[in-house]
């Protein structure tokens, strides 16, 4: 039974912990209080059945548990002649939905402390909001549990030095927090999506947690096109999870993937969200990336892909984010619409800026191979090999080099 209830606890954790953190003004007390409430629920729900509103039940139990703790601490501190205010018990069981929304946003924003490296922000969000164990997070980041424990402790100390105010944020502050938190969720997904070696399965946890958080944001800020688009984008990508690696762990390029392995239900949900965000007139980077993902998801075969539309989307994205990497993606689409020679010419001006970017060289190698310049292709691919490819990528690059060599031998 407890395994079933765990899911309910985890599902309610972000909202509960956020409300408790505002109430107690202390994340640690909030976490302890929530754990105690879950323990209590384990016995009570099994005897009397689960309540219709688990969040309200857990909040009440956690507040009582937390207050006990605070009172005990207060008694100790009275002896030491210091003051510690006991928060007043609110009348209603459930906080106002607007308040919960700001609470959850605040809690996530606390994890995004600017003094923390991005990976630590992600780890902290997984621990505090997602409720993952230290061991689970350590596995996802491919480091030992001891090291992860230390990193989390250090990160928590750092966020304590610069508290986020508990007042209701201004409109400007709220949208700033939302943008920062959304970016963290986006990067959490990417961290999980980037394969590092055969342990991909563990990293998929990051993708699943990122989707859960994106879902939470889309639910809480239900009129916001940007959060809808973010969830849509992540669902489109994640829908391909079973097709992107073969049984031996080798990466399968998008065009070679078995499309019947794509998750049709995730794709239709993503599509519904994309259409909704378009209806709201929203057009930001997440929406454009989701629109690109939609083109791939809806093409029955790789050959049926609408590259003209994808090229137009990348051009729009480049107008918003004029970075060399977006430019490179635009050129990759051009390679499909206008051929490899045109694309190679377009790539030349990026050579310096992207000299250390692995994908620049693998893409160049691929285009050179397509245009029949096998020697130059091998040179480009060998550069890519020196830039720290992941294991599946290394295998794919080496295969392409052998293919070029075979072609040279046949000439």
């Amino acid at each position, binding site marked *: 039974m407890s395994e079933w209830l765990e899911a309910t606890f985890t599902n309610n954790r972000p909202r509960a912990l956020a409300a408790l953190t505002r109430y107690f003004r202390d994340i640690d007390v909030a976490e302890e209080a929530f754990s105690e409430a879950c323990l209590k629920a384990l016995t009570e729900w099994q005897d009397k059945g689960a309540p219709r509103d688990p969040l309200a039940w857990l909040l009440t139990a956690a507040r009582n548990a937390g207050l006990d703790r605070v009172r005990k601490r207060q008694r100790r501190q009275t002896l030491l002649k210091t003051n510690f205010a006991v928060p007043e018990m609110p009348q209603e069981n459930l906080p106002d939905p607007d308040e919960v929304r700001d609470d959850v946003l605040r809690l996530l924003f606390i994890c995004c402390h600017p003094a923390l490296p991005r990976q630590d922000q992600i780890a902290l969000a997984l621990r505090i909001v997602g409720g993952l164990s230290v061991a689970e997070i350590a596995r996802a980041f491919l480091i030992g549990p001891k090291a992860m424990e230390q990193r989390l402790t250090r990160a928590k100390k750092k966020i304590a030095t610069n508290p986020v105010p508990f007042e209701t944020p201004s409109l400007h502050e709220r949208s700033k927090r939302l943008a920062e938190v959304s970016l963290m969720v986006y990067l959490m997904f990417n961290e999980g999506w980037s394969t590092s070696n055969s342990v991909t399965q563990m990293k998929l946890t990051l993708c699943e947690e990122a989707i859960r958080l994106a879902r939470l944001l889309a639910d809480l800020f239900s009129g916001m096109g940007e959060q809808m688009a973010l969830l849509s984008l992540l669902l489109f990508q994640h829908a391909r999870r079973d097709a992107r690696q073969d049984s031996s762990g080798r990466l399968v390029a998008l065009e070679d993937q078995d499309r019947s392995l794509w998750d049709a239900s995730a794709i239709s*949900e993503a599509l519904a969200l994309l259409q909704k965000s378009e209806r709201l007139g929203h057009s930001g980077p997440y929406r454009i990336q989701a629109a690109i993902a939609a083109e791939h998801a809806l093409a029955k075969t790789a050959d049926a892909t609408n590259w003209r539309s994808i090229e137009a989307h990348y051009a729009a994205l480049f107008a918003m984010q004029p970075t060399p990497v977006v430019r490179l993606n635009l050129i990759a689409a051009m390679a499909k619409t206008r051929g490899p020679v045109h694309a190679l010419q377009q790539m030349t001006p990026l050579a310096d800026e992207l000299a250390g970017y692995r994908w620049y060289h693998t893409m160049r190698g691929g285009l050179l191979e397509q245009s029949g310049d096998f020697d130059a292709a091998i040179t480009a691919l060998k550069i890519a090999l020196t830039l720290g490819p992941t294991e599946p990528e290394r295998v794919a690059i080496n295969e392409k080099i052998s293919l070029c060599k075979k072609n040279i031998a046949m000439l």
Partner: protein
Amino acid sequence: MMYAIAIYGEPGVFETLSEDKKKEVLAGHAALQEALAERGEFLSIKLMPTSTAVTLEPPAATGQAPLIVDGPFAETKEGFLGFYAAEFADLKEALRFAEMISSPIARLEIRPIAWAGGVISTEG
């Protein structure tokens, strides 16, 4: 008589279950679908999360278009997750089939329904 087996539960909980428990729930659905298929036609519908939905509110005044709003807004409480519809001999039989998908994370409501037209034919 036609009955609907409506599934209610907290949105998001199924997705949070461990792989084992997910499989357990899905095995129940597979068994029900197999059993229903053996005895005739049936319908099974899974509702997407409320974040994908929009609501058409009645027009504010005569002559105006209906108001389209996002949502319904997400509830943390119990939500309508999906339903089955099929012909059953009686309530007892409908209950016997519904039992196959009973789990600690869902509440099932068995209610007679009337067919009001339309045909759905889809694969997968």
